């Protein structure tokens, strides 16, 4: 829908620091209550849910989603979107699997996955920032490209036979803790530091909230915008390692559509699609909400496609409630 200016003072000017703090506090309850309510419902309806093994499973299964949702938060903060992430994750996983099978070198394979992820991210950012094509069309196009590439590279077959050096990243332990959980914590801390404690992070908020101020301050916002998308691609490439490890294979349609769950997690976490308002830890809660919903419905024997539909209903509901709160 075209943006229809509303009466009254225009919002963007007030969108940087103070708005960030107020959004943060008003949004905690929303996603936290949803998460708590889902946990209570599933604890009551299915026996296995509160089992420690199951809870650890939710965390592990959510790691791949978190690796996409964290950079997706940054992208959405710039008023952008990345619809290609699921397809890029798939192609990264396939490339990693193919390289490790051909060369036997997991390091080379990870390098290839990171390179292809970063290349797609860079292309998304460059077309958005420098050619000025709207990001949802750019990434819709690159989604098709990545999907086709994954099918061509594998000839629509799975690539199996992963060495332990790859599968360790999903099934292994370090100091008694599952590796994916450590990856998740490390990824969150790194992104938190980047977003809240560096100039890069400040510019990310400004790219969505007040790009004019950025330009007047003499900052080349376009470079940072490309950087945000490239970072997203890089993290998606790394997530390819965990995906391949989890399936012990590279499958050409493995993560098609996963970007929707990442966008859902960001939206549930309270990051707005307008004006650069958002909260990184909210995305963690959003990822957990999606993870708990999928896990609980899974325990109840509900098929995967219906689980995703439930996520869709939850997100549309959350955005609706959100729009009721803001006058328009």
């Amino acid at each position, binding site marked *: 829908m075209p943006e229809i200016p509303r009466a009254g003072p225009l919002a963007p000017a007030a969108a940087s620091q103070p708005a960030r703090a107020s959004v943060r506090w008003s949004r905690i309850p929303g996603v936290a209550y949803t998460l708590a309510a889902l946990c209570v419902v599933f604890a009551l309806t299915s026996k296995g849910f509160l089992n420690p093994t199951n809870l650890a499973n939710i965390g592990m299964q959510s790691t791949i989603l978190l690796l996409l949702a964290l950079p997706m938060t940054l992208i959405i903060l710039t008023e952008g979107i990345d619809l290609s992430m699921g397809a890029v994750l798939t192609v990264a996983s396939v490339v990693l699997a193919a390289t490790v099978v051909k060369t036997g070198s997991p390091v080379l394979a990870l390098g290839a996955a990171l390179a292809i992820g970063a290349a797609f991210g860079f292309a998304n950012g460059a077309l958005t920032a420098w050619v000025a094509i709207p990001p949802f069309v750019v990434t819709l196009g690159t989604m098709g490209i990545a999907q086709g590439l994954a099918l061509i590279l594998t000839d629509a077959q799975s690539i199996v036979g992963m060495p332990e050096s790859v599968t360790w990243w999903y099934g292994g332990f370090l100091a008694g803790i599952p590796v994916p959980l450590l990856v998740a914590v490390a990824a969150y801390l790194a992104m938190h530091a980047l977003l809240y404690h560096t100039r890069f992070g400040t510019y990310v908020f400004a790219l969505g909230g007040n790009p004019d101020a950025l330009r007047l301050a003499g900052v080349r916002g376009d470079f940072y915008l490309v950087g945000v998308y490239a970072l997203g691609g890089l993290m998606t490439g790394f997530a390819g390692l965990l995906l391949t490890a989890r399936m012990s294979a590279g499958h050409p349609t493995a993560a098609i559509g996963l970007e929707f769950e990442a966008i859902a997690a960001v939206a549930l976490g309270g990051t707005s699609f307008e004006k650069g308002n958002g909260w990184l830890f909210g995305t963690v809660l959003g990822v957990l909400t999606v993870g708990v919903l999928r896990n609980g419905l899974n325990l109840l024997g509900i098929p995967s496609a219906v689980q995703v539909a439930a*996520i*869709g209903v939850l997100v549309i509901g959350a955005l609706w409630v959100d729009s009721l709160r803001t006058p328009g």
Partner: protein
Amino acid sequence: MSELVAGLPKHDWSGEFKAIGYRLLAVAAMCIALALVSDAFLTWNNVLNVLRQAALLFLLASGLTLVILTAGLDLSVGANVALSACLAGTVMKATGSPALGAALGLACGTLIGAVNGLLVTKARIPPFIATYGMLWVVHGVTYWYMAGSTVHGFPANFRALGSGYWLGIPIPVYLMFLFLAIGVLFAQRTTWGQEIYAVGANPVAARLSGVPIHRRLVLVYALSGAMAGLASLIFLARLNAAEGDIGESLTLPAIAAVLIGGTSLFGGIGTVGGTLVGALILTLVLNGMNLLALNPNSQPLVTGVIVILAVYLDMLTRKRTRS
């Protein structure tokens, strides 16, 4: 026309016709090139095949054109086709009545579109997020409804809708030209059509001119859904079977056809006729790949490249005409 909606600027149709003219030249060039490289291209069967495929794509993309004219987007059309086709197919099987099945398929498509429109206007969710969410909701409902089963074997009079001929020309091709005429008349010769252009070109001016923006937006999303419902019937009649994942791969080509056809993503510029030419161009590309025995797995890749290129070229030409 300007007296119908006082105060709205007159639309520049001559520019639109010129844009379609260039694209028709591209179609002609592609046809000549394909005829030169492949003997199979200029056979009657292949030409009918191209037209039949383009017809399905055009029907789906024509409704989408109206949505994109308002600077919106409908990512749910492919999922809409799947659910509408499955509903129509199962009802037809259960009751033996093609009319009832077809009516329910159309109603289902329209309803999904109307919900999209309400999410965009009443809930004020950005169109690509609202319709993207609906994509997955509809997808899940389809899987739940079908539970992995397939329906097939429909009455011959219904199948004719997709695979029948009249005077040697496939029925879908007649439907394509019928809906081209309806679409052009609606968009360019009615008040509602003008208002849709106005909403996309300048929503503030449109609102100040008294255009009921929300109602027109719900209308275009509902029409897009209705056309998806119609396309689903032709798809169903053609395949003579329906299962949960049919139609899913149609969304990207449909968006591509609209954008290749010269409709601007930023709203207010474009024509339904252009979308028909866009659908022809995309179908010719895919048909050419087929004839040259290129890997069919590369189709999404090629479509993705075409989407980005089409928007890029469109922005280039518009920049030039503006300056």
